């Protein structure tokens, strides 16, 4: 492993992109017709809501917490989008803003009372699920036309999911990795004491991160409804586990504020593709979820190998 030119840091940073490239390349090889505008659109459509949910989870993981409620939260916002936002847009918008405020309040509560975020979000997952059932007792509803229009938009040359993913990744990257306050926010996960001594409010940072998670979770719900055109209270429950997996797959760590927005979006895309990968291999689609687990394990194993080679130096 000690070859000249092998740079562990670079390898670790490139690992998420490489795994996405390998999966995409294999799909192209197996089914060349996917290498088209239409094919890519179809393959990556569902990656948009998952990527947004993964970004939401990333904000929480960045401050060393974990959000077990993101799946039911996305379901709830999807239900709002398919009912209130469609019927009475202003009321729907108010409800979504209310959701973000609840998220911000959770961040404050968790910080002030020093609560384990896992348990608070666990409780919230029941709350969101119940609220979703109240809003939409049976699957149905209808997406606002502007929303399904946006998600079904066919821009020239480059398919919409790819543009959307790049825009999301770049905006968050600039905001969190380049901006001065972004560094403070990440510092809260890395060394909260140092951030506090430097005169920054930890409370404000936590509220900001949770509010951001609320915003992006809501965007995920909107994107999902725009794609499926109707909603259901259980529509996004799998997103909780998928979003955690996406953050980790993209090179994020559980503690220390080490996250990567670009990696998270790539991780979400990889997981989405892993689901459809099997049908191209003509393997049993029963293993769809298993393939996502297997890819997660393989990438984590590769990361261990890279870390070891780094330690050996």
């Amino acid at each position, binding site marked *: 492993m000690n070859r000249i030119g092998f740079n562990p840091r670079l390898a670790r940073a490139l690992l998420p992109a490489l795994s996405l490239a390998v999966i995409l390349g294999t799909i192209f090889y197996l089914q060349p017709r996917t290498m088209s505008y239409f094919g890519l659109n179809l393959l990556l459509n569902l990656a948009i809501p998952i990527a947004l949910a993964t970004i939401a989870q990333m904000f929480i993981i960045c401050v060393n917490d974990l959000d077990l409620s993101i799946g039911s939260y996305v379901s709830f916002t999807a239900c709002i989008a398919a009912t209130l936002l469609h019927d009475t847009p202003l009321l729907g918008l108010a409800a979504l803003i209310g959701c973000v405020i609840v998220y911000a309040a959770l961040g404050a*509560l968790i910080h002030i009372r020093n*609560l384990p975020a896992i*348990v608070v979000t666990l409780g919230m997952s029941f709350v969101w699920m*119940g609220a979703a059932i109240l809003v939409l007792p049976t699957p149905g509803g209808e997406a606002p036309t502007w929303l399904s229009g946006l998600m079904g938009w066919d821009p020239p040359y480059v398919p919409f999911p790819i543009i959307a993913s790049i825009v999301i990744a770049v905006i968050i990257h600039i905001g969190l990795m380049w901006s001065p306050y972004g560094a403070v926010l990440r510092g809260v996960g890395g060394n909260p004491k140092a951030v506090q001594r430097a005169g920054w409010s930890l409370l404000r940072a936590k509220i900001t991160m949770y509010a951001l998670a609320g915003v992006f979770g809501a965007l995920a719900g909107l994107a999902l409804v725009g794609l499926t055109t109707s909603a259901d209270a259980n529509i996004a429950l799998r997103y909780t586990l998928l979003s955690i997996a996406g953050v980790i797959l993209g090179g994020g760590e559980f503690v220390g504020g080490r996250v990567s927005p670009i990696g998270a979006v790539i991780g979400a895309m990889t997981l989405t593709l892993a689901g459809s990968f099997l049908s191209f291999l003509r393997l049993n689609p029963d293993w769809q979820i*298993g*393939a996502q687990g297997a890819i997660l394990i393989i990438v984590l194993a590769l990361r261990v190998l890279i870390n070891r080679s780094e330690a050996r130096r």
Partner: protein
Amino acid sequence: MNQNSIGLRRYFTRPWIWSYLAAAGTWLGIMAFTGGQGGGEVLSAALTFGTFFALVAIGQMFVITLGPGNVDLSIPATMTLAGTIAMKTMDGSDAMIPVGLAVALATGLAVGVGNFALILLLRIPPIIATLSSSFIVQSTAIWWNRGLRVRPPETLSDFAVAQIFGVPILAILVILLAIIMHIVLTRTVFGRSVTAVGQNQRAAYLAGIKVEQVRFKTYVMSAIFAATCGYFLAAFSGGAALNMGQEYLLSSIAVVVIGGTSVAGGFGNVPGLWGASLFLFLLVTMLNTFGLGAGPRLILTGAIIILVIVAASSPKSRR
């Protein structure tokens, strides 16, 4: 110092009492609404369904007590896989009941060993290891099941619903198991080691505790309890379903937390698990008798979990 230890003492004795008080209060609430009718039936049903919650929660509690980052997310998938494989192996034949149980236990053992292998080899937080393995385990169950619902052997399903004086036999067995596990947690080297690792892994290691061995046993135990629960739940509900474990992902953690175990690890307790299991079921029953739908029921469940954790916390102490 002295005051501190009194404070700690209160913290130890109180948490699990609350779950029983809450369960009793909820039961009284139901009785007040129905005018005292069907109190015995409600309790008997609570014991029946509480059994399944308590069984997986015992395993989850040991895992969570190991410290931050330790949560077994593969419990629902393990339950589903063990239930599915066992039902298919037995194929409704009474003679195969012990074989089915052995198969279910072996499934649990395999998942537990797999989980620990991932934790050890990949050096990833257990929550991610069990998350990734749960994907694979769930897929295996889907593949094995093929959409069929195999009925459990008659003797086994009779056993799963059998009662002595209104008390389900399974509940008695799991109460006995809880007593044993309480002794294991508080009196044996293994149980003390789990607590020690959860309080301070490095100190435990320096004190000569084989940390990895303790973690191995804990994860295998959790998976085996989940598998056992899947076996009996499938027998109880007339066959294995692919979503049978779903609600246990969050519920198993909820029961542990409401039962007074510290989520930060290091302070576990078994009695509270039964109190919390009964409470969760009685709460659902109470809201049902009040005529509330699934929505308000879930919202109240969530609100109670948050209230419990807020009440158990203090703003000053750092985790």
